[in-house]
């Protein structure tokens, strides 16, 4: 229920903010999952911190996303309310992670 309310709030918030500022295409949850996937990937495979630390590090509020780590492929996937998701993969030590 809380999740649905949060989605409703996010969707409602997608109307134009005051001042006529540019509103970019991806919504909050799309940004949230992309941020989580990319930064979780970097945290695990570039910084070398553990999953518990990295999960806390990428945490946003409200925390509407899931995180899934594929250790073999060195990929991280994040999903929000089953509608939006993002994935990042580790390339190599010099180039770190990139959003797919």
């Amino acid at each position, binding site marked *: 229920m809380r999740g649905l309310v949060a989605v409703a709030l996010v969707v409602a918030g997608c109307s134009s903010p005051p001042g006529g500022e540019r509103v970019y295409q*991806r919504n909050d949850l799309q940004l949230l999952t992309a941020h989580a996937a990319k930064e979780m990937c970097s945290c695990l495979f570039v910084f070398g911190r553990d999953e518990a630390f990295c999960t806390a590090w990428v945490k946003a509020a409200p925390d509407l996303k899931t995180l899934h780590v594929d250790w073999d492929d060195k990929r991280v996937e994040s999903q929000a309310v089953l509608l939006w998701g993002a994935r990042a993969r580790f390339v190599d030590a010099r180039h770190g992670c990139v959003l797919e």
Partner: protein
Amino acid sequence: MRGHVLAAVLLATLLAGRAHADCPTRPYWPTDAFLERTAETAMARPAEIAALEQFAFTLVGSDDERKGARTDAVVIARAGEIVYERYARGWSADQRHYSWSVSKSVVNALAGIAVAAGLVALDDSVCKYVTLPRADHCDITLRNLLEFSSGLAWKETYEGESNQVSSVLAMLYGEGAADMLSFVAGHDSRDPPGATYMYSSGDSTFLAGVLHRPLSHAFGADYAWTQLFDVLGMSSATFESDATGAPVGSSWFDATPRDLLRFGYLYANDGCWDGARLLPEGWVAQSTAVSAPYRQRALDTAPADGTQGWQFWLNLAVPEQRQPTPWPDVPTDAFAARGHWGQSVTVIPSLDLVIVRTADDRDGSFDFDQFLKLAIAVGS
């Protein structure tokens, strides 16, 4: 015959001297390893160390609350020798740490290297090197980008406002993520290039993208390593790219704190390293002088952050913009690479100090001036 040989030897000596005469000489360079004086300093400066640690390493509340100073490392070097080093919050010396906008200062180095190699000139149009989605932005030069004066309409916000209006979030994680240069260059103009200063991750990433072509062409795709990181012994350096392969110059450089120290030490040595000049003569001086657009019209200023040069924060007052000395307890020749959540690499030439801090500060309360004051007391 002997006279000719003598003349040749003298000439060779003169030429060799000329190439290196402008670079500082040091008894050692920390390319492979740092000399350490931490034990010595601990004995000589116990009160100063206690004061620094009390300030920087005291955690408040639970980790969840993300309150106060959350220091992950402090490393201080004098004359290139480590005099203080401490890690916290589970971080160790051999782990790369995110640097966020310290990355922008790394782009300054790449720009300097490109200029030194004769690959670019600062007043070249960006269109000399890349094709833009909008030709009307061909009036933007590399200098404009260095000086954060592209004039592009950009909203540099991170947390705390609607995420959907943030240009930097859209660039890193949203519609701009695959090709950040095109995304930045697709924005409307706010002002003509060179007229106004506005801190923008867009300008730094745009610059990194522009430099990527000529640098890759001349030195191969790993130019940042062969021309900079490997030379300094920054073996941990990671520079993440977007899908085009251009480094994300605003935000995604990662390295160990000791490698960040090496980076600072390059700038403490006028852009020279172990007898080689990486950055052009005068580059560091120009990079650490207040830029003309900043003096003319700085659209965003935060007194404690510093004033701006070429992707570096400065401790220089700018009366034209009603900016007092940003870090009043610190020598005015200090300059810093600084990143979100408390990252910093500070160079103080007059004290021959380089001070690195990595952190995860989330509440904006950290007093940078006070930190530097305490670090200087330990290190100088």
